[in-house]
């Protein structure tokens, strides 16, 4: 079985702090990491290969430095990796990103495409469903367990608001995974050795045979027109005194507001 895992290199936004004086980001020490949910996608792909045989290819669109992340993917068990990098790809919205990935997937052998549910930075969760539609493949979001793959069909559990659903779809298909699906492994020594020497081809718009006008910023339907920092100033009424007094103050305020009887 040929599995493609889509990964994105993202800034580790969970470590971001806001400087309260200037109300801007403190960027010092923000590292680029593999989008955390994508590591679960990769782990699941490697487990499926261990069970069913085949090949896992890590695929990413990004600037040249994303190659470093793809090496990490190889150290974690991917057999191969491909980087889609071209100035023409820069500034892509989800539609243009999905279009670029779709063009790459079409060039590769594939039975299953696995993505993380969403990224840490953009956080839209849109690329995978858009990719599925552009490839005209079935799509299952939020997979928490792959129950079975047999006779060209995939059966999976997924998480929705009210509980779990079990769905079945024919392959090739696109799925997104949630972190409940597995526990990603650490890189193996053999993997690390392999990742150092792995050849990671870089494909450009020309390699994908796509018109640069249909990808990147130029091919994006949405345009960012403004970026700003959410303004926060402390307006809270602070209750002083000992815990007893604080609790009293709060209860009387809540009564005053009619929140409690």
């Amino acid at each position, binding site marked *: 079985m040929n599995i493609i895992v889509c990964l994105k290199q993202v800034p580790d936004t969970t470590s971001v702090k806001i400087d309260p004086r200037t109300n801007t980001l403190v960027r010092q020490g923000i590292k680029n990491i593999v989008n955390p949910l994508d590591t679960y996608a990769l782990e699941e792909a490697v487990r499926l290969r261990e069970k069913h045989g085949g090949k896992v290819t890590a695929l990413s669109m990004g600037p040249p430095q994303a190659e470093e992340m793809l090496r990490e993917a190889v150290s974690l068990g991917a057999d191969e990796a491909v980087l889609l990098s071209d100035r023409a790809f820069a500034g892509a919205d989800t539609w243009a990103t999905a279009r670029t990935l779709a063009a790459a997937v079409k060039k590769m052998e594939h039975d299953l495409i696995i993505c993380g549910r969403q990224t840490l930075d953009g956080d839209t969760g849109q690329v995978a469903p858009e990719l599925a539609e552009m490839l005209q493949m079935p799509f299952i979001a939020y997979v928490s367990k792959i129950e079975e793959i047999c006779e060209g069909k995939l059966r999976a559990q997924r998480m929705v608001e009210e509980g779990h659903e079990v769905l079945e779809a024919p392959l090739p298909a696109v799925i997104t995974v949630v972190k409940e699906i597995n526990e990603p492994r650490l890189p193996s020594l053999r993997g690390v050795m392999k990742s150092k020497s792995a050849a990671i081809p870089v494909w450009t718009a020309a390699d994908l045979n796509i018109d640069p006008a249909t990808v990147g910023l130029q091919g994006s339907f949405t345009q*960012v027109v403004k970026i700003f920092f959410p303004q926060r100033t402390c307006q809270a009424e602070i209750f002083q005194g000992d815990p007893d007094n604080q609790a009293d103050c709060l209860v009387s305020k809540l009564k005053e507001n009619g929140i409690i009887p």
Partner: protein
Amino acid sequence: MSIRIDIEQCTGCGSCVAVCPFGLLEVIDDKITLKEGCNLCGACVEACAYSSLSIEAAPERAPASTGYSGIWVFAEQSGGSIKNVAYELLTRGRELADSLGTELSAICFGKDVSEIEQLTAHGADRVYLVDSAELKDNPEDIYTQQLAALIRKYKPEILLAGATALGRAFIPRVAALLGTGLTADCTALDIDPEKKLLVQTRPTFGGNIMATIICPAGRPQMATVRPRVFKKNSPDSQRQGEIIRLDFNREGITSRTKLLSFMADLTETVKIEEADIIVAGGRGLGKPENFKLLQELADTLGAALASSRPPVDEGWLPYSHQVGQTGKTVCPRLYIAAGISGAVQHLAGMQTADVIVAINDDPNAPIFDVATYGLVGDLFQIVPRLIDKLKNS
């Protein structure tokens, strides 16, 4: 396309360096340089006082084809009952439609959908309803193709949908089929009075920055909004609207994904998205047993128990209790945050609550920035007293 740097104008002041969310700008020899990886967000362009930075304009895309008008709200239902997010979107959609001088329609798919007239009572001029046994379990393949087909036929200029599990999974597929833009998880929607475009604002970069986004060339302009981001108005049963029942036509629709079974999640006694009062705990609780104390406070108030991300990551509480960027968005009348520092990802999920109470021993915790009332101190001292006083009052 790239950021163009006019070296002549650059004074090397570095004000752009501080605003780049990706840390890609550097002052070298008193001139600015840009590293690889820019996503052209434009933050630096705005920060530059000397007009030395600009985004090299992309060639104009062909303008959106004309003939599109009206706003559509996808009214999601589950088991035949319409979800609150539909009413919330209709409430905001009504204001947007009035400001555009256009009509507001609700589009609803399902089987035996009840209280359809509620959609007009909440602001829709028109309701398109496709009611069929084949639509009973919200089949995403069919929804994708059906919605795309109806959009092609009726040509609305704007489509809004809830950023629910269903909406987030199938609305992007509709956008891909139609070839148009989609903005996820908007927290504000407005109309640009001159260009008549939908102005969409959403948190990005982990909620640390806000982006305002437009979709000038694609139609419809599509956006998803999380439940509880907008408040729903009170229904007006006198409002007149037209209800159009459309036949479900299976022809030309391929459905490849099959729902085999469904298991309801029973661990959640009170749905936190629907709760009027929420008591939430964070890392400051220290260990899972301490959530019993918060549960007692919640029981006293008739509240739902929620959590920030760390306790869920630690496995102290199931994911269904998580509030924030990667959890649920809530908007209760009262939100009590105990031992929650207030990371921006958490704030994104709760800051629109009517009254926020923060209990934390760190007076500089960001949670106090969004709180209505702050109690600086040891939650293990404060919460038991709070429970006593509430019980005795």
